[in-house]
């Protein structure tokens, strides 16, 4: 690896932010991406990394991204759940990396789910 020094710099830059974060763990927003065979085949990998990029860009420290398996609605993959503490879970379907910026800006940052991307909107069609 050529740039372990770079990694050391990342460690130093993040360590303080991490200490701040653990004090208020209960307001963490969770982003859960479906990553079973169906999700992966439908394009979940770039979606997941798009969330990571957006979170890093905006330096959001109260958001975690994790993965889940197949929940039985493979035709709607890639699927993403956004879980804001105290609010109902919102499920986005057919998510593409280009949609991630809007979900992060409008839902995660500003608290307004993007209705047209949700499973409710998709199932109405």
């Amino acid at each position, binding site marked *: *690896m*050529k*740039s*372990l020094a*770079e*990694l*050391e710099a*990342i*460690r130093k*830059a*993040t*360590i303080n932010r*991490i*200490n701040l974060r653990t004090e208020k763990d209960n307001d963490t927003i969770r982003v859960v991406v479906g*990553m*079973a*065979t169906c999700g*992966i*085949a439908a394009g979940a*990998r*770039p979606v*997941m*990394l798009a969330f*990571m*990029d957006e*979170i*890093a860009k905006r330096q959001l420290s109260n958001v*975690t*991204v*994790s*993965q889940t*398996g*197949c929940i*039985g609605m493979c035709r709607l993959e890639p699927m993403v759940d956004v879980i804001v503490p105290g609010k109902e879970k919102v499920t986005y379907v057919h998510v593409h990396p280009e949609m991630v910026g809007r979900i992060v800006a409008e839902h995660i940052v500003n608290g307004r789910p993007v209705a047209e991307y949700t499973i409710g909107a998709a199932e109405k069609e």
Partner: protein
Amino acid sequence: MKEIALHLLDIVQNSVTAGASHVDIRFDLDPDGVLTMAVKDDGKGMSPELLERVRSPFVTTRTTRKVGLGIPLLQQNAMLSGGGVTLESEVGKGTLIQARFNTASIDCLPVGDLAQTMATIILGSPEKPEFSLTCTSPAGETTFSTEEVRAVLGPEVPLTEPSVIQWIGESLKEEIEPILGGIMR
């Protein structure tokens, strides 16, 4: 699946589910253009009976459904290129799955974005197991391991930190390109 790297992302989950502590991934391209992708884990392994049936799409260990397409789809794509899949497993020791691809075949999938796949794998299982990736070709060799990264980060900074995941993706891309660049797209 459109990339061999996506198959990797898929079947690595089997090793994680098997409770492995170490998962060693290899991509070896020989001078004749045969690419072998190997995933070796020290998980719970499979009985000879399960090993025999595991290529069937109607065999799975999950309890929610009766189908499992990870290995069958990998095998299909390997065979389309004139290659195949071999499996070795022993209960309590672990499993080795190897998929051979003949990269000269017009039906062979590209390797794809292996760096993105590794970043995603690590993000999915950031604490256990430890992952390593070794890529070899006539052009050279490169290795990467989460143990190495963890040693630099220390106990406070998790691998899931967005800037760490970005670093893993970007530095792996630089490392892998010179080795497997010719068959990645």
